[in-house]
């Protein structure tokens, strides 16, 4: 027999073994998240866990409605996971390989990686969903006419505007603010958007200290002294992971959290780990209605308990972001497929994904910005209280800021919207 006929015979054999043709169809999804390096513990591994949980549950048809149909559009999901560590250049090379092997790529926590991947995704014409990275530049500057690229998480400008509004609602008599942010894109953007939003809403507020220590510095003694000396009403820090935990451990005994009200917009991942070490009264954000701020709906109840049962810890926001991205992808595929069998074409999926409104453990997500490629969602903040009796974190004064209030209009860059004084905002 020739090689070709062997292949045909093999294929027939496989088809016979696998049974009905429809069940044999698979959708290959490549996941990219940090499995090593400083971002693995706080974000990367929880996101990988969420991906594993969701893929298995979806394949088994265990996810509650409207996602109770097994798989995605009838196809079984096959997952590949890749480590995001190694820097943007390495990730572009990895992406090019991955995009050849899978139907959809869901990934990226680092804004630097997202900025590098975005144009390549369009060039490779591979459906790609950014699930977590926060830079507003993706659809505002890097890829202004996206086709293949989507982002199901909100971006940092939206989250920072909500943070500013929350602080002014919480402390109407605010006079001074100070910032402690890592010296790279995320830290600089977060502080710029937060401080400018505060100043746009209340021009009389003064900025008394702006500190930008090196990423992963770990030692913040001098910064804490400077913040204590500045004595601002509010200290803003977009620190995350080990840096945030080190800052809290060093600042709390020295009383910074009593001198100033501290707001940590991405502090939610730390809440579970530090528990009693995090002082009461700290303002915490979770980059959207994730974790403790997620709505009490069927999907969320299922997700929390399934995740907790499987991994022995509660899902943090990166896990919610991952679940959201997978469910958004499923919703888009199934909307495109309609009631017919078989996987829809990529173009049909893209048409369905644009401006899609879908349910997730974080509630309703709308793909409203970036020509229908960028998600918006309500942004909550709350005040942390440690409940010593139960050993659980609790939140008071939780407020949700609707997208109409904190997301820029589709035709405007976030920073311009802040500068113009938020025209058209409905709060």
């Amino acid at each position, binding site marked *: 027999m020739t090689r070709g006929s062997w292949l045909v015979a093999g294929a027939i054999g496989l088809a016979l073994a696998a049974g009905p043709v429809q069940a044999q169809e698979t959708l290959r999804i490549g996941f990219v998240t940090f499995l090593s390096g400083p971002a693995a513990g706080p974000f990367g591994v929880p996101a990988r866990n969420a991906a594993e949980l969701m893929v298995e549950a979806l394949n088994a048809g265990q996810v509650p409605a409207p996602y109770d149909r097994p798989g995605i559009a009838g196809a079984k999901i096959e997952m590949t996971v890749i480590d995001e560590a190694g820097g943007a250049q390495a990730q572009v090379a990895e992406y090019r390989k991955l995009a050849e092997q899978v139907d959809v790529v869901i990934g990226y926590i680092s804004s630097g990686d997202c900025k590098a991947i975005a144009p390549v995704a369009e060039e490779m014409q591979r459906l790609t969903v950014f699930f977590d990275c926060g830079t507003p530049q993706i659809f505002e500057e890097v890829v202004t006419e996206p086709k293949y690229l989507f982002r199901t998480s909100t971006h940092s400008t939206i989250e920072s505007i909500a943070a500013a509004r929350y602080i002014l609602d919480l402390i109407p008599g605010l006079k001074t603010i100070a910032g402690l942010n890592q010296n790279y894109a995320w830290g600089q953007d977060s502080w710029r958007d937060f401080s400018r939003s505060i100043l746009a809403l209340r021009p009389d507020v003064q900025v008394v200290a702006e500190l930008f220590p*090196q990423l992963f510095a770990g030692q913040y*003694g001098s910064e804490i002294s400077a913040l204590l000396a500045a004595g601002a009403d509010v200290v803003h820090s977009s620190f995350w992971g080990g840096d945030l935990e080190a800052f809290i451990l060093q600042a709390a005994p020295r009383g910074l959290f009593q001198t100033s009200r501290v707001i940590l917009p991405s502090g939610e991942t730390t809440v579970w780990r530090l528990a009693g070490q995090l002082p009461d009264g700290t303002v915490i954000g979770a980059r959207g209605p994730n974790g403790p701020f997620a709505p009490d709906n069927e999907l969320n109840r299922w997700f929390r308990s399934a995740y907790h049962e499987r991994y022995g810890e509660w899902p943090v926001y990166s896990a919610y972001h991952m679940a959201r991205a997978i469910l958004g992808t499923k919703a888009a595929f199934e909307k495109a497929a309609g009631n017919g069998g078989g996987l829809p074409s990529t173009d049909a999926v893209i048409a369905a994904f644009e401006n899609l409104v879908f349910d997730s453990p974080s509630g309703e997500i709308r793909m409203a910005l970036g020509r229908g490629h960028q998600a918006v969602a309500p942004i909550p903040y709350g005040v942390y209280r440690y409940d010593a009796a139960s050993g659980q974190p609790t939140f008071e004064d939780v407020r949700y800021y609707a997208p109409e209030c904190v997301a820029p209009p589709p035709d405007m860059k976030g920073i311009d919207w802040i500068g113009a004084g938020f025209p058209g905002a409905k709060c």
Partner: protein
Amino acid sequence: MTTTIAIVLDGLLYAAWLFLVAVGLTLVYGVMRILNVAHGSLYALGAYVAAWAVQLWFANRLPAAAGLLLLPLAALLVGVVAGTAIERGVLRFTYGRHELVLLLVTYALFLILEDLVKLVFGVDPCFAYQPYGLLGVVRIGRLPYSLYDLVLIGLAVVVGLSVWLWLEKTRSGRLLLAVIHDREMAMAMGIDVGRLFTVTFAAGATLAALGGALAAPRISVVPGIGVEVIVLAFAVVATGGLGSVPGAMIGSLVVGLVRAVAVHLLPQVELFVIYAVMAAVLAVRPQGLFARAEVRRI
């Protein structure tokens, strides 16, 4: 006034932390001519073992004050076990090779140890925060300082003095100085350089681990902490002069104080100022502040 006190104290604290790491690095280089990149991994290993021991200690509600002693003990354990293992198991086969080869070997060790730490301790952060709050807080001027930090400054001084006394006043220290000064001549005089190398490397490893163990209560012990510290320690050692213990001390002080001045008075330059100092020193004295210029033997 408050700012001045804050700059001095913050600078001293940062310098103390830097010195604990840098002194081991410079000692190993001085004696063995090895620029040990794996020094950062030993720092991380010290932090991890200390965090693990402290967690265990406090989870079992053992006497809190004694928990403080776990930190140096963890460092000693890491230094002696890992230090000796690395020197006897790997490095001794590379002696006599070019310094660059040794640099690559320690870089390989660094990569292996990073993965080993991940394998053993996972990627989730470890905490050892209990000792940090144990000693309480004192007010200096208007600013509250954690007493633990002030003790750390004192400890760095003690370590510095001990190393200096060891080198200057004890027999084994003087032998070491002889080796630093001229290895060939020292060997010709009958000094057992092999044994000195083992001792030196274990001592250097212990100092790195001590830096990590003492930092552990104030940080989140996560993968990657070794990388950050080794880069800074190199900057300090290069500024002070490779192989010079007083150089490591002055280098740490200069870097610590300059950084504190920047944070308090001109925060925009914080990131850059450490390397600016290093560049300025090296432009004037390429061998660093305290190292003597050497005639290169070809």
